[in-house]
């Protein structure tokens, strides 16, 4: 398998080594290794049931991997974190790995702004002296809250939801909810952002805006993004690095260019007959970026 991998240059952010996840007898991920770089967009692709979301769930602590090592190289703290050993909630809190969900998980009965403040909980909690200063109404808490609101405003502007800040998150249109979830994840000030099918259900215009948002996060925030996506044209367009999974195993790894021409990938997507023609829409998707 490694012979099909191609080195991608960059500064390592997240190293996945020999990750295996078994549910009973079912091997959801088998001996998966890859490295996501800082300031790059790494896409995880593969057919349905390939184990992509399971990888995310392992990375963000929702599952404890059966085997393997997940190392995050924190560029600011200059520290290594072994994610597989950490409690789920400590991964975003300490290691700075944030995520979004395939089925959007917003706090539907809370406002957009409140959603973004909840994301800054740990900072604010300290500032409120674990609620004691806050209850007394001391000024340093007010100050921190104002700062938190500023950060929230910044991201509201980035995702174009400033005017809807006081809406209930559950009342937002679908596309807005997707973007709000990303803004909320960014409010945790992450080093790595895991996006689980962020463009699912979006129209072409919204998908385009989403691409721009990812580029912005990568270039301005200088963090690494991990992306699960089905939309091939989007993957090929935005990613710096693509990892292809099939039945929980890695079948290809490299630049979009490399992956696209990898016979193993074509086989996985189209079945065993290698000389079969690509279905037109897939071919178009894949070539869209070349043209």
């Amino acid at each position: 398998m490694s012979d099909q991998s191609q080195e991608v240059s960059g500064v390592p952010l997240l190293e996945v080594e020999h990750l295996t996840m078994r549910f009973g007898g079912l091997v959801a991920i088998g001996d998966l290794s890859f490295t996501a770089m800082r300031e790059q967009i790494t896409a995880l692709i593969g057919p349905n049931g390939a184990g992509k979301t399971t990888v995310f769930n392992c990375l963000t602590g929702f599952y404890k991997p059966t085997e393997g090592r997940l190392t995050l190289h924190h560029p600011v703290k200059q520290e290594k974190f072994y994610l597989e050993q950490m409690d789920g909630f400590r991964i975003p809190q300490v290691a700075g790995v944030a995520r979004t969900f395939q089925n959007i998980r917003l706090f539907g009965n809370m406002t957009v702004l409140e959603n973004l403040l909840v994301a800054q909980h740990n900072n604010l909690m300290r500032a409120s002296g674990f609620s004691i200063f806050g209850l007394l109404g001391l000024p340093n808490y007010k100050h921190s809250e104002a700062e938190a609101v500023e950060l929230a405003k910044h991201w509201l502007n980035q995702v174009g939801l400033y005017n809807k800040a006081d809406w209930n998150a559950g009342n937002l249109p679908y596309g807005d909810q997707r973007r709000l979830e990303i803004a909320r994840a960014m409010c945790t000030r992450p080093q790595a952002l895991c996006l689980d099918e962020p463009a699912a259900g979006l129209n072409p215009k919204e998908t385009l805006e989403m691409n721009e948002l990812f580029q912005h996060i990568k270039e301005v925030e200088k963090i690494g993004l991990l992306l699960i996506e089905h939309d091939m044209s989007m993957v090929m367009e935005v990613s710096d690095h693509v990892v292809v999974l099939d039945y929980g195993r890695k079948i290809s790894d490299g630049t979009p260019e490399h992956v696209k021409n990898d016979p193993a990938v074509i086989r996985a997507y189209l079945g065993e007959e290698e000389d079969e023609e690509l279905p037109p829409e897939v071919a178009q998707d894949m070539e869209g970026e070349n043209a």
Partner: protein
Amino acid sequence: MEYFTQQLINGVTLGSIYGLIAIGYTMVYGIIGMINFAHGEVYMIGAFVSMITFLILTMIGGVWLPLALLAALIMAMLFTSIWGWTIERMAYRPLRGSFRLAPLISAIGMSIFLQNLVQVLQGARVKPMQALISGGFEIMEKDGFTVTISYLQIFIIILTIVLMTIFTLIINKTSLGRAQRATEQDRTMAALIGVNVDRTISTTFVMGAALAAVAGLMVTLYYGVIDFYIGFLAGMKAFTAAVLGGIGSLPGAMLGGLLIGLIEAFWSGYFTIEYKDVAAFSILVLVLIFRPTGLLGKPEIEKV
């Protein structure tokens, strides 16, 4: 040793009763994921229906005992099932798909309602009834202590085994059982492939109620005293049994029922009787903390 054997027999009898109630909790939880808090009251209604049937038969005049038992069994299962069906239809079905605590709160309300309904209709005093089945076998005797197994205990244990066998067959072999398992897995999908989900869920409630009615009948015969409040404690213990065995699992419910019955019997036999209810609750708390999937339950994989 003799004392131990006696407690064992008592425990198995008690456990059979708890097990039958526990099946109702476990089936309902399995299929719609809610705790039917009013199930203890369904059992209480079963006990009242059986007692009233016996009293009517006594009033009419001597009826051959096996016939009387059969009549009470049928009456209790029939009328209690109608109650079970109605409760689901009125208090739970409208709340399907509502926010997660709503059905449980509705069930608590239903439980309070049923308790007080029976209190209003039949009075608050305990209802004593003379023993219908007396006598038993003396198994062994030593130092003046006799171990007996009463005919009633034999009746209870055999009836439980028979019912359990029938139910296991229904769940495993019939199309109804298949529909139940399909609904349990994925309600939408089950509906798409032609399973009548509403009817399947209703049937589950009816089956649970029928078994609880049998447990009610047994308790009426065994203790000879019932009141409108018996459902609360028995319900809690049966729920504990269901959780202990692994909620959602039929054999688990029976196993859990047996264990709770045994624990209670031995606790009362060897320690203080006052704290026997605390024992059951403490076990519930401990099981939920250390093994929330129970003894025979499957681990739940969180879907994110």
